[in-house]
């Protein structure tokens, strides 16, 4: 039995310890916002927070998350920070096919929590683990710049 916190709730599972966190989230907990793009930790579409750190859930066997705090896109959807990102991505035009976007939003939130006023180079570095094939990244970079500005003061973690 593995017990952990998922989006603020304590949950448990009897799934085998070798199962990928990605599959557990999608199949058992029906959280479809975490997407699979490569299954090898290269594309970032499955990004989640594990104890507040951005991680690729396709690389995490659930045996290693006992007692951990896991947050998915569904877990941050109600936050002020998400609302700012949502709006900024819309204004900047950062969303095309959308498949990379939940992961990209997680990476954006992770970056801004650590660096509330990132430079362009820091933004590019911050999302370099998340692939997007539609946008060429620039409008996503703009979205993050905008979110930094709009959400001034919101990003610092307590």
């Amino acid at each position, binding site marked *: 039995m593995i017990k952990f916190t998922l989006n603020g709730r304590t949950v448990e599972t009897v799934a085998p310890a070798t199962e990928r966190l990605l599959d557990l989230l*999608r199949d058992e907990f029906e959280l*479809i*916002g*975490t*997407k*699979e*793009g*490569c*299954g*090898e930790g*290269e*594309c970032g*579409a499955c990004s989640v927070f594990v104890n507040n750190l951005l991680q690729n859930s396709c690389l995490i066997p659930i045996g290693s998350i006992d007692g951990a705090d896991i947050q998915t*896109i*569904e877990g941050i*959807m109600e936050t002020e920070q998400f609302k700012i*990102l*949502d709006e900024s*991505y*819309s204004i900047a*035009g950062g*969303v*095309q*096919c*959308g*498949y*990379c*976007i*939940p992961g990209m*939003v997680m990476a954006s939130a992770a970056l801004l929590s650590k660096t509330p006023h990132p430079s*362009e180079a820091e*933004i*590019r*570095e911050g*999302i*370099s683990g*998340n*692939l*997007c*094939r*539609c*946008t*060429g*990244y*620039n*409008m*996503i*970079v703009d979205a993050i710049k905008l979110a930094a500005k709009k959400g001034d003061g919101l990003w610092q973690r307590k």
Partner: protein
Amino acid sequence: MNLKDISTSVHKKDHKGKVSGQLAYISDVKVENMVYGVLYRSPIAYGKIISIQLPNLPDGYEAVGAEHIPGPNYVKIIKEDQPIFANEWINYIGEPILMLVGKDLDTLYSLLNEVKIEFEEHQAIYTLDEAIKNKSTTACLASYEFGESLENISEIEQGAHQIIEEEYDTGYQEHVYLEPQGMLGIYKDDEIVVQGSMQCLYYIKNALLSALACGDDEVRVVQSPTGGGFGGKEDYPSMMACHVAVAAKVVKKSVMLVFDRSEDMAVTTKRHPAKLKYRTALDKEGNILSMCVDIFLDGGANTGLSSVVLQRALINSAGVYKIPHFHAKGFCLKTNTVPNGAFRGFGAPQSFAGIESHIGHLSKLANIEPLEYKRKYLVKQGDPTITKGKFRDPILMEEMIEDLLNVSDYNKKKGEFQRFNQQNQRYKKGIGTSLFLHGCGFTGSGERDHIKATVKLVKSKDDKVSLKISNSDIGQGILTTLCKIVAKELDLPYEEILYPYPDTKEVPDSGPTVASRTTMIVGKLLERAAKKLKCKWQIGVEQEIVENYVHREMIPWDEKTFTGDAYPAYSWGVNIVEVEVDRLTGNVKLQKVYCNYEVGKVIDERIMKGQIDGGLAQGLAYGYLEKMTSKQGKIQQKSISDYGPPTSLDVVSIESKVFDNPYADGPYGAKGAGELTLIGGAPAVQAAIEDALQTSFQQIPITPEVIIESLWMREGEEVD
């Protein structure tokens, strides 16, 4: 809609569902009684199946193969040469032979390992070079020839000062749509519903009608939100649809087939590798007297869409130039490799990379600055095309070039970079340009003879208007742009226009989502339908307007002689790229990218910018970053990072501008934009690298290995 100008951006229809991740793509869907399918794929490149031995299958697990296909065993597309399940001849590694179906994926994969198939292997052809060498015995999937007679050209060549011959190679390009391919066949008593990630609903429906040999009301195709296409979901999904539909019929359950990334990269279609040969006669001053172009495409194991790709490659073989005395021929040859197919640009990126490279090299011989040399040959309004069609509409290229020279400070940069390069041994800077166009819509008479698009607008009793068309939003934003067109015509709030994901039970065939045709062709039909609806509008009454494609006849296209107007309209582009090349590592770093485009009229500025940035990122990477190879018939790159599409660190900010030049047969003047933006990337990046290193390349991608090898060879020559 109160927008003064249609180009003003609006909030995208699908934004909320996508940013929250709650919009369900096909792999997010689960239906009752659903089982999975996995495919047994050929381990050999060419040969015959001798015997198939299946393991004992547990309860609830079944094998599905060619014997279960009710109709003929091929994926209906253009030629009948692509089996749904190969049951006799095998033509490439990865070709599907049978499908195992059952509840648990792990069990299916272990069963797959126990399938034993005996083959009789034959000598395969693995590369385009081998196919060209054995051209007399290799299957030619398509060929065309046109232009001035070779006798005339030979006469001109005899009087020429010199004849320049060049060979140019382009590699594979992989789509890397972020969402791997996926298809679900939903079993119902009276119909099979196929739902998935796709660009062309009616291609799939027609393939299913053939494979299942069933009535029109027994199959239905529904698009799921699609995580990127770029052409990769044009033809390939038809095969997957046949697999899940046949299997669903057999097991009487719904069957899901979703690829993981490595399977997707190993077996789905790619951009055709190409060899382009140029033979150009020059006078003493370096002026072009005549040019012959031969294009060879590696079709892979079967025809698919290759003949049409070859047509577009040939039609673009002279680039944006008016070349005196031009002749071209092209061949698409079969190799025992994964079939190649549609990819944004559809043959044009290969041609533009080749011709821009060749013209650039000719300018060096003439000792004229490349852009100046190119401008001497630029086509003008009223000029004939190389297929004896006509450039009818105003061409703004001169204005676009002039503007971009100013914006980029091109001439000043040239001097600055020269000085920088004299002072630096390791790092070299360069600047390069590309000029290009894209023919909008289907090649030749495709719209008139094959597609015959129909659109429908339906108004409900509560006066809500829905778009009934078969086109897919694959990220390019047509859920938004097409609704804008209808909203503006009807003077209704854009939010009130509905465009649900298309379902063939509900929508007529408005054609596939390909060829930069959706905005221009389908958008125009919708504009016309909306105008009619507005005239006939009755409050509180259900109304339906149907609008059919009408062909504006120009110089009729004749595929046999390869003459006539190949496209109704053209979109245009200019790119300028600056790079810094590290002579020690061969690494290329983009520094600045500038671009001007002309697409008639922009329907949404923000969406257009998305097309520019994304298309250019793909096009630039095609020139120096993305490398895919095949060895003994096997794709060597198994993962995304093996292949190397750009990350956020590879792309730089892109300065772009779009010029207005409304086109009479496009909605609000709009032409095609989706493919154009990719085409200029590779040739501009090549020209910039050549400028930095003061050398010439005859291939893309120009990877660090290619650069280092070229530097070594030059050093060798200098020592000699």
